[in-house]
Structure formats: C-alpha cells, structure tokens
C-alpha cells in the first residue's frame, strides 16, 4: 500500500455565505489548498477531484457539482466525482482519495467538501437533515437529528450521571478555542455564568430539544474545506523542498443499522467504535498514543460518547476528564482545538475535510497562539454520518520523508 501524505490544506471561513454559490465556496477552498501545496490548478496537477457534499442537489438546486467544480477550476479533463454520505461526506471523500492513491490508481487527489445551507429557513434545513433518518419508522413521526441527540443525552444522563453543567463546560471550552480560530463560525467566548450559572442563563441558553439547550448544539453553517493528497513516494513531492509532511497513518469506516431502534443499546455507537478500531489497526497505534482529537460534536453529548467509543476514556468517564481540564488545549488529551462543530460550525459536507485540515494545521504547528496543541504526535478525527450509522475515523502524524 502506497503511503499517503496531505500536502495542502484550504479552508473558507465558516458562517453565512448566502451571497455565494456552493461551487464558488468549494473553489475557494480548493485554490487555497493548491496554493498551500505550492501547486497551481492546471490540468494534470491533480489526477482526481473528489467532492463531498450532502445537500447541493436539494438545498441549492444544483446537481453535478463535482463536474462544475472541475470546470471552474480549469482542471478538465481531470476525473471528478461527488461523494454523498450525509454529514460524513467529507471524510468519506478523503477515505476514497486515500484508497485511490494507496491502491495505485492516482498519485494526487484533490478532496473538497462544501455546503451552502443558510439559503433556506431553519425549519427547512432541519427537515433536510432529517431525511437521513429511516423513512418508515423515524422520519414520519417528526423525528430530527436534534431529537435523537436529545433522547441520547437524556439516556446518557440517567445511566452515567451526566449533568447539564457538564455539557456547559464543553461549550465554554469549544467557544474558547473557536474564538481564536479565524475560520470559525462563532468567534466569541462564553462563560459558565452566561450559559448555566447566572440569572440570565435560562434566557441566553434556551431549551431547543429538552434537555438540550442552544449552547449544547452546533450552528447551521455555510463553508468549504479542501485537502490535497499525494503519494508520499511520488516525484511530485521532491520539488517541494519540505523534509516532512503530514501523513494519513490510518483511516477506517463502518456502518450501523439505519434505524436507531434496531441497535442493541441506543447508547452504543458501534460504527464509531469499529471505524476507530480499523483506523488504529491500519496505523498500528493504540488510543493511548493519540495526542489530540477533532470529534464530531454536532451535539456536545457526541464529543463525550465518541471520545469513549474510540478509547480515549472509559465509558461514562469522559465528563470527568472534561471537568478536570484534561481536554483543554493544555490538558492531557485536548479535544476540538478548532472549536469543534459547536463553535467552528458544521457545513455538513465540509466538516470531515475541515477536521482533517485542523489535524494538519496542529501537526505542522501552525495553529493560532492559544489553541496550538503542545508537541502533538498523532491526531485523530471522527466524522459522524446520520445518527451514527456511517462513521469515518482518520489518524494523522507529521513524518520525515
């Protein structure tokens, strides 16, 4: 298997971009990634374009966005495909790009994830995301992703003693990191006083899906991110003058039953566990060797549950690590130094690519002051599709080449 390096990253700001098109956003991220790699977007500069997007066809009334992106970047006749795997579309596209290079069918793959969601109303965006759910036994009841996250949170609270104050601690840390991240959607710090302890907390942090409150869930965001993958033994790397690159050490994926009710235990995220096990096996690593993580905290409860499923903490104990400061930027295992989906934002198809961009930035030592992890060795990213029915885990490190 050919080793795969990430030689360029690009990222638009996450937030509101309703005056642009989804392809325009993706193009910006792609150009930034090519520029970061010291390459131009000329035909032949990449062997393959892969695009991750969940909603361009439904929300933006545009299909064939991979072809459109190849055209506007003047990459034609480079092959281009769209990958749709819900909110995990971005990491799925990276996984397929990795497989193409590892298998020898491409030397360079440009992976771009993007989404333009805020062009529709909140209730329409909620319904669009809910189309991920089982059409016969979930969607028709009015179930949504926040509803499942709320029910998961309640069950977790009852089984493991989690409190809403525990969740607020995660929000405070996410916003502290996000405030320092120039691409984050929400760049403001929040305090425990404002969202939990103080007299105005109930108003500032209103309930959206009991027991979840506003600051327990991520915002709806627009944005795009891109990575340029290259075979680590390719002659294309020799002209870069860099002696080290960020490598993909391991990447794994797994599925779970579509309907949450079909799972043996609604609190067990089997696809997260299995995707991580596959990534660890490929990387020949164990969880105790991980330096930091970018975990899919579309709902704060998921940061805890994912961290436990991938072996960073025993089941039910992640909340204690958060309370002890272990997941802070200077803690034993910093989580979501980017601000996570909670503060950085969650433009569905872009999220998995954005998480890997953050791994690269941290491993290169290029994160902004105050949110750079100290001497990171291995970073892990978990991109969560559906309500955990299709998950991709990626492990990266900086290696001498």
């Amino acid at each position, binding site marked *: 298997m050919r080793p795969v390096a990430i030689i360029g990253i690009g990222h638009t700001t996450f937030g509101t971009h309703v005056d642009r098109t989804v392809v325009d956003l993706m193009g910006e991220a792609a150009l930034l990634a090519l520029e970061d790699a010291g390459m131009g977007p000329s035909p032949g500069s990449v062997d393959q374009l892969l695009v991750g997007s969940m909603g361009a066809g439904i929300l933006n009334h545009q299909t064939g966005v991979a072809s459109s992106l190849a055209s506007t970047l003047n990459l034609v006749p480079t092959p281009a495909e769209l990958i749709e795997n819900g909110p995990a579309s971005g990491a799925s596209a990276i996984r397929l790009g990795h497989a193409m290079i590892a298998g020898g069918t491409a030397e360079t793959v440009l992976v771009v994830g993007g989404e333009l969601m805020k062009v529709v109303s909140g209730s329409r965006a*909620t319904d669009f995301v809910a189309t991920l759910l089982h059409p016969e*036994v979930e969607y028709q*009841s*009015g179930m*949504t992703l*926040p509803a499942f996250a*709320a029910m998961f949170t309640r069950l977790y609270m009852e089984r493991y003693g989690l409190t809403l104050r525990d969740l607020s601690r995660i929000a405070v840390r996410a916003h502290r990191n996000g405030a320092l991240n120039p691409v984050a959607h929400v760049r403001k710090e929040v305090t425990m006083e404002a969202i939990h302890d103080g007299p105005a907390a109930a108003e500032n942090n209103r309930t959206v899906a*009991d027991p979840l409150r506003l600051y327990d869930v991520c915002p709806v965001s627009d944005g795009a991110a891109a990575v340029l993958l290259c075979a680590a033994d390719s002659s294309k790397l020799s002209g870069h003058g860099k002696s080290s690159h960020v490598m993909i050490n391991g990447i794994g994926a797994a599925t779970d039953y579509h309907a949450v009710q*079909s799972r043996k235990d*609604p609190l067990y995220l089997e696809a997260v566990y299995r995707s991580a096990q596959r990534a660890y096996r490929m990387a020949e690593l164990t969880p105790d060797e991980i330096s930091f993580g970018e975990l899919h905290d579309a709902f704060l409860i998921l940061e805890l549950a994912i961290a436990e499923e991938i072996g960073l903490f025993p089941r039910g104990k992640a909340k204690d690590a958060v309370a002890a400061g272990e997941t802070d930027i200077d803690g034993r295992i910093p989580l979501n130094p980017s601000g996570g989906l909670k503060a950085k934002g969650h433009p569905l198809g872009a999220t998995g690519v954005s998480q890997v961009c953050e791994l690269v930035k941290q491993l290169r030592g290029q994160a902004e002051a105050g949110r750079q992890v100290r001497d990171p060795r291995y970073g892990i990213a978990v991109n969560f599709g559906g309500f955990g029915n299709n998950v991709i885990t990626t492990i990266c490190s900086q290696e001498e080449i």
Partner: protein
Amino acid sequence: MKSSVRTRPISVDTQALVCPKCGAVWYPVPMVCSCGFSPLLHDLDWERRALSDHGRLVTWTRLKAVPEGIEKESLTLGMVELSDGVHLVGQLDLDQPASGMHVDIETEECSDGPYRRGVRFVCRERHHA
C-alpha cells in the same frame, strides 16, 4: 438466474417479522436477516407478529424546532421498549413524560407534508396493568 425477488413488506404496517431461519424479530423489516437469510429469495415467508400495544418509555424529548411540514409549535417524541422487546420511536401524547413510565401504543395516519405519509405511533399514558 432469478429475474426478480419477492417484495419486502414495508414497516408501516405495524407488524414485526420473525426470520423463519433463526427466529430473530425485526422492526423495521430488513431485506436480509443478520443470519444472512433472505426470505425474499425463497418460498418461506417471514412470520408476521403483531407489535405489542404497550411498553416502557426508554427516553424522550420535547422538540421546539420542528421540521418543515409539521404544523405544530413543538413535538414530544420518545423511544419505547415494547413488552415483547421490540423498540420503536413515535410521538408522545403525555403531559409529563418520564423515563421508565408505562405507555399504551396506538397508531394514527399521518399526512404532514408531501413525504410524511402512512402510519406513525402515538404513546399515551397507560391506565391499566
């Protein structure tokens, strides 16, 4: 080579199906059982089993941000474990839901927008043991 397979019964008919080979009970109904057997390729039928009409509330939420197509200000939703072990999700017609409470399960026709059609479950407070 077969030219077609038999049609899978959709899950809105409120009946669980039992795999004729391994006895696993499914709701919703897959095309292939986890034992690898697919009745759709054979002349064996899934055994139909009516879902229990009562169960225990496992978890619940009151959703304020309802999706497009639902004409209500909020929805109360929950997951129930039926007395026969099957889990399902549905709407709750309960003033004060609580995890563990016993509920009766009813079905109702739904027509909320173009895609929410068919049957859904509604859980109400259980008044008798």
